[in-house]
């Protein structure tokens, strides 16, 4: 069965610190998709990234970067020079098909608090 683990329930950092949110996944499939979403206090979900299992290149988008390591089944998310606006719950997710459906599973989320 597919599973996504986000072991860090809550993280607090001071503004300008770098922070890494961990995501470890389990799947038997060789083709799968990994996602990160952000949910700020306002509640509205924000899609951050989708990565397929054949693309192991790390991704950088501004202060955000993602480290995909098949060898450790991890897809970690790093925020560089964190800001108060980064405070949110971050969800990692996995789908083993590109049709999603019941094979799309979310992790429990990591609550990040960035203190001024």
């Amino acid at each position, binding site marked *: 069965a597919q599973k996504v683990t986000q072991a860090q329930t809550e993280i607090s950092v001071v503004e300008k610190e770098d922070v890494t949110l961990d995501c470890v996944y389990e799947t038997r499939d060789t083709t799968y998709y990994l996602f990160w979403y952000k949910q700020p206090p306002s509640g*509205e*979900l924000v*899609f951050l990234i989708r990565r397929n299992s054949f693309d192991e290149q790390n991704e950088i988008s501004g202060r955000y970067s993602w480290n995909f390591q098949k060898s450790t089944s991890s897809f970690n998310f790093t925020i560089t020079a964190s800001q108060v606006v980064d405070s949110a719950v971050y969800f990692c997710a996995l789908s083993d098909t590109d*049709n999603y459906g019941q094979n799309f599973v979310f992790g429990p989320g990591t609550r990040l608090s960035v203190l001024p």
Partner: protein
Amino acid sequence: GAGVSQSPSNKVTEKGKDVELRCDPISGHTALYWYRQSLGQGLEFLIYFQGNSAPDKSGLPSDRFSAERTGGSVSTLTIQRTQQEDSAVYLCASSFGFSGPQETQYFGPGTRLLVL
């Protein structure tokens, strides 16, 4: 409109009644997604449309749930004979396409459903 809109924003219903939730995607977006978020189950993926077609309906929680999309635009999620466990925030998102930069999903504000 400028973003994804959902209606109603809040819905209170009695157990056993049917409800319809509506999603208006961003104009020109071909892909549309439904999710839900509840205290008990966390975030769940429900269904995805490419145009008017849903390739995989297995994410719908039970046969009381159905979804359709007409004209490649508006989508309706219908819950028949609502149960208290259906209480959740139902989230809709749309994307221009399904790969590369086009796959970025934009979320609506959600419909908060409470079944008494």
